[in-house]
């Protein structure tokens, strides 16, 4: 028997982890002489109090959805892809090249091409570490970290030497043609009168992200490939016994993972900036790791975790804007959330498990006692 009911595993434990992280964060805020209650209020109103706030929260959420799913797919094959940052960077490059190549007539035409380019570039960036892992045993954690740096340097080079329009000082590409502009939430909800989501960057990519969640769920649990990926992730020797090729699965899982991370660029490059700038990914690749950990590599969990981190990002920005709490403290809060939901998961899990076992034993005891009483 499993030690815990499923709801405790997927809901109770993450919530307890979060609670501890928030309480500790509150103590830190207290320690620097600020009011934690006020801080929470600022974060909530800033991130969720208006459609504008929601527009930012959902924009960040979309980024984290893609990178979180990317890490999750690799996790299922027990591959720790921490190269989401680099893959998303390359995805951005792909989007920029696609968007700048033609004067697009309409976003509906541009989107599939840009999405394909983003996914292909991201996948290509994951392919090299994957190949070395599969064939040579070079550890994927090391190689993907290296490829994050190489990716950043490559972007730098491309922006400075290739994509920067003549005469421009800033290392950034030119603006994308108007036909490549994705509808934002403001555009989508324009029929309500035009005041909803005004000025917020959330765009149609959010729905692509949600669709990606379903797609990944279907892939992992309803396809033969997903079955092979999970088998390989559980046990490589067993996969070999079952005739599943470790080389093939390592490469395919990483390609899918890289493609998902690359696809994030549709949101931040095409949907928001509408041009390619330096450091466009802004750490979303790394947040994806925390999102996948917290979401237990399940697309639904990833969605909730991405939403939480979207809230933390937007709420944190508001915090530094409206209070004297320094911006760095937001990073502390995020770090605590990552620490407790990811690294220190067992600290909460073990006592809760013991609790459930004790409760079950007590129930069994009571059941045994009852017939005995009846007999008397």
């Amino acid at each position, binding site marked *: *028997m499993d030690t815990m009911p499923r709801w405790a595993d997927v809901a109770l434990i993450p919530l307890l982890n979060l609670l501890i992280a928030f309480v500790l964060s509150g103590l830190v805020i207290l320690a620097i002489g600020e009011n934690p209650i006020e801080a929470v209020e600022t974060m909530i109103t800033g991130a969720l109090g208006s459609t504008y706030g929601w527009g930012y929260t959902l924009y960040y959420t979309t980024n984290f959805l893609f990178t979180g799913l990317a890490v999750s797919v690799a996790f299922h094959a027990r591959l720790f892809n921490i190269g989401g940052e680099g893959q998303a960077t390359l995805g951005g490059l792909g989007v920029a090249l696609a968007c700048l190549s033609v004067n697009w007539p309409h976003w509906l035409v541009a989107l599939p091409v840009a999405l394909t380019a983003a996914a292909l570039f991201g996948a290509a960036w994951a392919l090299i570490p994957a190949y070395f892992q599969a064939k040579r045993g070079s550890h994927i954690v090391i190689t993907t970290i290296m490829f994050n740096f190489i990716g950043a340097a490559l972007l730098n080079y491309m922006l400075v030497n290739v994509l920067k329009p003549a005469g421009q000082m800033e290392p950034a590409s030119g603006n994308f043609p108007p036909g490549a502009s994705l509808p934002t939430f403001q555009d989508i909800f324009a029929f309500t009168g035009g005041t909803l989501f005004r000025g917020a960057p959330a765009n149609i990519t959010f729905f692509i992200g949600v669709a990606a969640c379903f797609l990944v769920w279907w892939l992992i649990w*309803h*396809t033969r490939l997903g079955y092979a990926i999970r*088998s390989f992730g559980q046990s490589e020797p067993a996969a070999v*016994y079952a*005739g*599943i090729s470790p080389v093939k699965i390592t490469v395919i899982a990483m390609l899918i993972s890289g493609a998902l991370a690359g696809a994030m660029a549709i949101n931040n490059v095409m949907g928001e900036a509408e041009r390619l700038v330096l450091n466009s990914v802004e750490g979303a690749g790394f947040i994806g790791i925390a999102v996948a950990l917290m979401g237990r590599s399940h697309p639904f969990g990833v969605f909730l975790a991405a939403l939480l981190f979207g809230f933390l990002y937007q709420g944190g920005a508001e915090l530094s804007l409206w209070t004297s709490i320094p911006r760095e403290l937001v990073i502390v809060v995020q770090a605590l959330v990552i620490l407790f939901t990811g690294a220190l998961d067992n600290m909460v899990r073990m006592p809760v498990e013991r609790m459930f076992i004790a409760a079950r034993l007590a129930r069994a005891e009571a059941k045994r006692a009852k017939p005995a009483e009846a007999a008397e």
Partner: protein
Amino acid sequence: MTGGGQNTGRAETAAPAIELKGISKAFGPVQANKNISIRVQPGSIHGIIGENGAGKSTLMSILYGFYKADAGEIFIKGRKTEIPNSEAAIAAGIGMVFQHFKLVQNFTVLENVVLGAEDGALLRPSLAKARDELRSLADEYELRIDPDAVIDEIGVGMQQRVEILKALYREAEILILDEPTGVLTPAEADHLFRILRGLKDQGKTIILITHKLREIMEVTDTVSVMRRGEMTATVKTAETSPEQLAELMVGRKVLLRVDKKPATPGGTVLEVENLKVRDHAGVERLKGVSLTVRAGEILGIAGVAGNGQSELLQVLGGIAHGTGSVRLNGTELDLTGRFSDGRSRRAKGIAHVPEDRQHLGLIMDFAAWENVAFGYQGDPAYNPTPWRIDNAAIRADCAGKMERFDVRPPNPLLAAKNFSGGNQQKIVLAREIERNPELLLIGQPTRGVDIGAIEFIHQRIVQLRDTGKAILLVSVELDEIMSLSDRIAVMFDGRIMGERLPGETDERELGLLMAGMDSAPGNGRPALETVGGGH
């Protein structure tokens, strides 16, 4: 359900060497030991027998201070003793020889014996003292060993002797041996039993934990039977029989012999010629194996674990690569390259029940139904489209297989790790046998499987044979090989030492072959003495 002479070992002399009173221990919801009481007389060999998971090892771990009992008391030589850790156990005069030796591989025998029992910061005086001590122990107990041999370079029988010497060096009066013969050849086991009798004669008390009835009958004075965490009986060995013990272990009557008709072999199915396999380190594990298996026949491969049987199964099952020639029904099989994998083997009609079902045959965290598709995930019945896998169809198939193979509980949604060893094996067996393969490779079919399930598994294997399929059986259990096989091949050091018919050989002859010796007359008994120190 209990045997006739329960607790007959009582009150012969004043204080028992060990007395346990009401020991209980639970791991989470699992009650590993329930209110166990036992008395062991000094200067006797006391066997504890039970199926895997009956709680024998837990009980001994409590005695050795690895676990703390939830309830109960321990008395050593009549004195109540707390044993919170292994140092306390050693101080109380208890020595333990584990199933898996705890030796430093690149230390010498002497260094291993001294390790943890040094007299001071300087090693030289301790070593010198230990050397003298070992010499006298060797004379006293027939435990001769070269103190300067490196553990790496001596055989398992010798390594076990080192473990015993370690305990004696720490002045153990009570010696616990946990499944000591699992890694030994029959000859090495015989030698071990001689040593144990010698120790007994010197007044030591020995507790022997095993699941092999034969050993209990051969060497013990009294025997306690455990079942599902409870001590079901303690009887004098002389007053019991293997059948009675088996019944006590399982709780019902058990067929110890497999009921089977003589084989009616057909044409050759598997032909292996000069098969060689190297492991990752480049060491040759199979050194030119040739054998054939015919339709409707079980070829049993006997041998001590680690003599190439695993590699043979792996290369035939598409897990390892090799050179040589393997033909299935006359068609050559690839031994390297992309068509030498498990999928290609299955496509050709080879099913494989691997030796290590927990690491190869099953994915422990997968549900039973997911494991039923394992290796056959490409089966059209499971794949309505090239991409989609039909979970509902697999679940339905799993439910059917569970019913036909009496898997308990018959719940396809339960994770493999939550089934007992026997039921896990039934899941693997159902998956492989119901493919109706031309050739079934089966390794250690009943390792870690309770006696009740062993019967069932053996019957299924024989049934498959009777439908005219070829079966290659690998097992380290000689009894299993003897009772199941239609022909027996013995492996030693990557080679087939010889083939015998089960009716025309005995355990002694097979044991000699397993130890790498020809069983020709004049080459028998005297050579036996050197086996322990061999290779």
